[in-house]
């Protein structure tokens, strides 16, 4: 068979992404039709920049979804090697293709004869799974610590700010190297850190509901029992994994096991991100606590946590949402950095950082394996930045 021309490759790639296009068009059609009833999300569709950003982000989210859940889009197994396909240029026909195999390596083969296109698609799954969740955890930690630090001030603020500056003064890569090397992972330090960091969402939710329904025990008590019970179970199955240092839940009760490498990467990314979130939340709390509605709540006799979580927090949601988008982008970059230095995730993992790292060694001879993941990462981060910009513009407009 003849190798494909560039035009053919582009057409075939576009066809390969068909489910994503359909999902994107459906999302946009629905959202634009009902945009007046959708609040801030709907207003996003008034700004062209926000729409472009949203489209880029949703493109990768849908790609990850279809690839991760239904195994669509990718043409080959991201880990499968086919002999004779090593470092082949884009559009090379698959050697010895059988019926049911996709007949081409659309973006060529890498130095281990794996399909670059499928690895790029599979890499999106890793990013879309880890980045938003890690950012969310970092926000939980940052909010739970930043609100009281800003609201109370004093010693608490001094100590917490010192700690956050301490982490921020660390060069990120040195921190990663110290946390993610196999020797340190063996000692279980990342598992203990996970134990501490993952408790913050539970604390946050507990305080959130307790401060709201404090005066109505008949709602509060069952609500807290159900929510906290569920979250604690998830927490325990998160941190306990058979074979690691923490193994508290017996096998059948353990809902899922996080692969060791992913957990370590997750923990270190949350750890690096949370001091910055803490600083932002603290600054916002300092600013907002002098407002009249806070004084009014104080005069009404509301508790401090009610004021922090139900008066201050909803009123600083604008900057926080914008920062959340930006921070997912930053987390994506951090994940790429980890992969680039070969830290954490297993070396054959298809995530974008590792693939770039694989491809860079032969870059001056075969640039094609490193470029697709590089552009993929760039487009996702660009999408998130544009989305944040659009959101900022629209939220300032009210």
């Amino acid at each position, binding site marked *: 068979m003849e190798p494909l021309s560039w035009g053919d490759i582009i057409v075939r790639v576009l066809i390969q992404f068909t489910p994503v296009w359909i999902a994107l068009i459906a999302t946009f059609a629905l959202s634009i039709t009902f945009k007046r009833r959708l609040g801030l999300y709907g207003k996003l569709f008034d700004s062209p920049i926000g729409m472009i950003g949203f489209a880029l982000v949703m493109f990768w989210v849908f790609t990850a979804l279809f690839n991760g859940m239904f195994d669509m889009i990718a043409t080959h197994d991201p880990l499968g090697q086919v002999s004779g396909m090593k470092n082949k240029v884009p559009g090379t026909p698959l050697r010895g293709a059988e019926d049911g195999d996709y007949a081409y390596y659309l973006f060529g083969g890498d130095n281990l004869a794996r399909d670059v296109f499928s690895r790029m698609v599979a890499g999106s799954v890793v990013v879309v799974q880890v980045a938003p969740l890690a950012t969310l955890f970092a926000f939980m930690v940052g909010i739970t610590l930043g609100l009281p630090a800003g609201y109370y001030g004093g010693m608490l603020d001094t100590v917490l700010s*010192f700690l956050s500056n301490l982490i921020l003064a660390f060069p990120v890569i040195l921190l990663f*190297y110290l946390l993610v090397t196999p020797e340190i992972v063996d000692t279980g330090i990342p598992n203990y850190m996970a134990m501490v960091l993952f408790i913050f969402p539970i604390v946050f939710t507990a305080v959130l509901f307790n401060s709201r329904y404090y005066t109505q025990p008949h709602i509060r008590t069952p609500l807290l029992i159900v929510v906290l019970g569920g979250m604690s179970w998830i927490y325990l199955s998160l941190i306990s994994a058979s074979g690691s240092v923490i193994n508290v839940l017996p096998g059948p009760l353990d809902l899922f096991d996080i692969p060791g490498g992913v957990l370590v990467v997750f923990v270190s990314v949350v750890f690096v991100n949370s001091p910055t979130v803490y600083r932002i939340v603290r600054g916002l709390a300092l600013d907002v606590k002098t407002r009249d509605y806070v004084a009014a709540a104080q005069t009404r006799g509301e508790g401090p946590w009610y004021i922090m979580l139900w008066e201050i927090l909803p009123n600083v949601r604008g900057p926080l949402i914008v920062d959340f988008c930006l921070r997912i982008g930053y987390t994506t970059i951090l994940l790429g950095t980890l992969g680039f230095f070969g830290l954490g995730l297993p070396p054959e993992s298809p995530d974008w950082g590792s693939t770039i790292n694989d491809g860079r060694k032969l870059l001056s001879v075969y640039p094609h394996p490193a470029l697709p993941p590089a552009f993929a990462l760039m487009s996702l981060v660009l999408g998130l930045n544009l989305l944040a910009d659009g959101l900022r513009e629209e939220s300032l407009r009210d």
Partner: protein
Amino acid sequence: MGLFILRRVGVMILTALCLTFIVFSLTNLYPNLEKLAKTEGNFRMSDEAVTSWLTKNGHLDPLPIKFGQWIGVVPGWTNTDEDGKITGRCIERGADPAEAATYCGILQGHWGNSSVFKEPVADIIATRLGHTGFLMLCVMLVMVPGALIIGVLAGMREGSRTDRSLSTVSILSTATPEYVSGVILIALFASSAVGLKWFKGTATSAMESANFENFFLPVITIALYGMGYIARMTRASMTEVMTSQYIRTARLKGVSFPNIVLKHALRNALIAPFTVIMLQFPWLLNGVVIVETLFNYKGFGWTLVQAAGNNDIELLLAISVVSVVVVLLTQLISDIGYVFLNPRIRIS
């Protein structure tokens, strides 16, 4: 002001102490020490041999004592073996034990020896910092003027076509981390597959003689990522200044537009970016590590990767001291500079 600087320096020293202690304890965990013993001794050591090697070399002392020895406030360890030969932290190989100093830590200027490079740490750090300093200087020379020009041009007419296109460029550059832009630039300009071959894909030769061909790509790779951020800050502060009352007055007086921008707006618009530029140094450090690895330029960042990858304890500690001091110093300078540039701020 004096008190303020004094307090900041105090906090700085405390932070540096805490950070080095964290690095110290993480690098001195038993699995790391075991690896060290096996690389220094031989790989097939039994567990007992590892323990005795570690004891003999003072690695199994309690952590605070070892940390004190490294700083130089606790006497260095000594050990007498069966033949009566005395070895110790402060005793050079072959030197007379009686003449050796009691204390030898960083306070005495003794930074130890690197186990990877087999050289004194102080020498390694000095040469590598020199290389990186040159790289940083070039990056700053490209990045700062470029970012300020883009920011000022974009911010002087908010919403114009120049503004929109320049803002898009700066968002694009903040969305491209060094390992992405570096890879793309090498593939475009240095690979035989594309055939442009304008520049070299490695900067190893730039350590002896840097020229445009081997040094442009690493410099532009770091500069691009930081440039977008500074440009956006400059743009934001420029648009704010351009809507202020005194600019309107100047316009109503009939001052020409270039004059307004250059004489009235620019000075006030550059206050905010100054802080941002100073706070970029820690980020640059990050970029330097990536770019030096990518382009094989053997500077500070490259050394960090080597030291961290091989758990070279004393080299890692020295690296963290240096980088922490750089980070905290730039924070201090940015605070002080801010006060000088903006007379409305007073530090009480």
